[in-house]
């Protein structure tokens, strides 16, 4: 399993250092993203609460403005709507798109704009029902302002939603994939390095033992030779170094 | 309210009445001389030689003619309103036929009186000087006056019943409780014609063309 969830690296000390640095970066990033997600979430919650509030308010405002229209129609007659339709020329009410920055996320916001130009609508209903018509107009402008606000909120909501999703994906990716992977890699590298160390130790031990044995043998031979010289010349005892005992190869691995 | 607002008919009636009144006064003031504006002596001769039969005939025709005119006038005033009102309230037609019948009654008065008068009418021969006997002249005038009385009484009575009947139809269509109340008014209006008839009958009662 560990082989699956780790980076394919050669377990060396250098690599270990690199991975460790990456892990550090990932943790830091994770923390930061967590913070960003929190900030966005706070904003998001605020936007949500406001959307719910504004939406209910919108229901009320729209109802009011619809009723104002009823009053206008009551006073000025049903035909007034045709007059209104025919008086449409250029929009006076517009919106401006601006952006707001929340934790590095650009949120589009709309601003209500009224170019204030003298409108033909002002004269509508001059002879009959002018007042309710103007009331209706004011009510509808109010409704529009509210709707623009709501549109901003809604767009913010969508943008925030997207941003939060991305951020959360990143946080989760860091938390659940990258960091475990790095950690696994570190553990793996550490394990491998330990193994190597242990092998080396064992080998050193072995060499030492061999060396000690050889030394002992050599000493014994020397003692024998000394004794042979002393006891009969050493013609036969003059052992040849070359065809002496088999000298084992010394193995230096690694 | 200027004089033009009164309406042309009223205006002309007023003019004609005032002119004839002035002429009448003028005639009365200087009646003694023969070259007066109105020569009353000559006028007497003119009327004295009129055949009583002509007068009675005129009386009969006025009795029936004016009564029928009044009745017809009343019926069309009532009738047009009745028909219009009955479009939305068909229930009123049978009840409001009473108004039409009242108008019709006016014509019947006229017919009755006319028959009465016609049966009295006889031909008389004139005297030698072209004059007629006093009694036949009186009978002629009586029948003429009787006819005129009945005729004019029935004319206005018919119009009156017609106008009230029209209102009656309109009110009944709106509120059926009003019918009886307005009917009472209509009955009063209708009685007017009867007054004329009574007087007419009394007037002609003693008319005798020939001295017995």
């Amino acid at each position: 399993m560990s082989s699956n969830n780790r980076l394919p690296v050669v377990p060396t000390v250098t690599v270990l250092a690199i991975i460790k640095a990456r892990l550090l970066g990932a943790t830091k990033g994770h923390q930061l993203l967590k913070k960003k997600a929190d900030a966005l979430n706070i904003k998001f919650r605020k936007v949500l609460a406001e959307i719910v509030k504004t939406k209910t308010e919108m229901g009320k405002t729209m109802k009011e403005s619809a009723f104002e229209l009823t009053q206008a129609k009551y006073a000025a007659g049903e035909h007034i709507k045709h007059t209104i339709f025919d008086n449409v020329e250029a929009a006076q009410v517009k919106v401006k798109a601006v952006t707001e920055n929340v934790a590095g996320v650009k949120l589009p916001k709309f601003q209500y704009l009224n170019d204030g130009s003298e409108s033909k609508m002002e004269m509508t209903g001059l002879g009959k029902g002018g007042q309710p018509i103007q009331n209706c107009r004011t009510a509808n402008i109010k409704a529009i302002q509210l709707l623009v606000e709501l549109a901003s909120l809604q767009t913010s909501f969508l943008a925030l939603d997207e941003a939060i999703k991305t951020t959360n994906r990143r946080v989760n990716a860091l938390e659940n994939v990258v960091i475990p992977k790095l950690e696994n890699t570190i553990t793996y590298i550490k394990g491998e390095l330990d193994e190597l160390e242990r092998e080396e130790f064992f080998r050193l031990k072995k060499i030492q033992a061999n060396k000690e044995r050889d030394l002992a043998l050599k000493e014994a031979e020397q003692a024998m030779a000394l004794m042979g010289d002393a006891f009969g010349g050493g013609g036969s005892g003059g052992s040849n170094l070359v065809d002496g005992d088999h000298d084992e190869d010394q193995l230096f691995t690694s | 309210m200027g004089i033009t607002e009164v309406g042309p008919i009223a205006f002309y009636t007023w003019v004609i009445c005032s002119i004839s009144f002035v002429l009448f006064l003028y005639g009365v003031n200087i009646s003694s001389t023969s070259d007066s504006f109105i020569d009353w002596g000559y006028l007497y001769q003119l009327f004295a030689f009129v055949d009583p039969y002509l007068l009675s005939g005129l009386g009969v025709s006025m009795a029936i003619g004016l009564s029928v005119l009044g009745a017809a006038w009343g019926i069309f005033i009532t009738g047009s309103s009745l028909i219009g009102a009955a479009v939305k309230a068909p229930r009123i037609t049978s009840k409001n036929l009473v108004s039409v019948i009242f108008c019709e009654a006016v014509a019947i008065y006229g017919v009755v009186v006319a028959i009465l008068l016609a049966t009295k009418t006889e031909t008389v021969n004139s005297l030698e000087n072209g004059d007629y006997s006093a009694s036949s002249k009186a009978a002629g005038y009586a029948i003429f006056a009787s006819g005129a009385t009945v005729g004019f009484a029935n004319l206005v009575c018919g119009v009156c019943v017609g106008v009230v009947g029209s209102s009656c139809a309109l009110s009944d269509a709106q509120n059926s409780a009003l019918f009886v109340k307005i009917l009472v008014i209509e009955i009063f209006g209708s009685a007017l014609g009867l007054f004329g008839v009574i007087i007419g009958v009394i007037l002609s009662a003693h008319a005798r063309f020939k001295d017995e």
Partner: protein
Amino acid sequence: MADPSATNSADGLMIAVIADEDTVTGFLLAGVGNVDARRKSNFLVVDAKTTVPDIEAAFKDFTTRGDIAIILISQYIADMIRHLVHNYTKPVPAILEIPSKDHPYEPEKDSILSRVTHMLG
């Protein structure tokens, strides 16, 4: 997320309306309406004679025009073209479902609000 067309943003973007006659009348009275030289308007009156393809066409037109920032659409009309509204994800122009006077506002149906309530739990 950027402005769809830089040229128009200076003097503002328009608000488009797809709604029943009375609602549109109200908004026109407020001065939302715009009819340009080519007789193209930024509102659509939906009555008994308006067909769903008409609404769809207008919706698509408004979403792609570039000089419109907000589209107000009556909720019952949004229901007619729900598939389009649901699949629409761009933030600008923003789609806003509004109540109409004879169709009381139903928050459950609103694409956005259903998500909102879902998130608030």
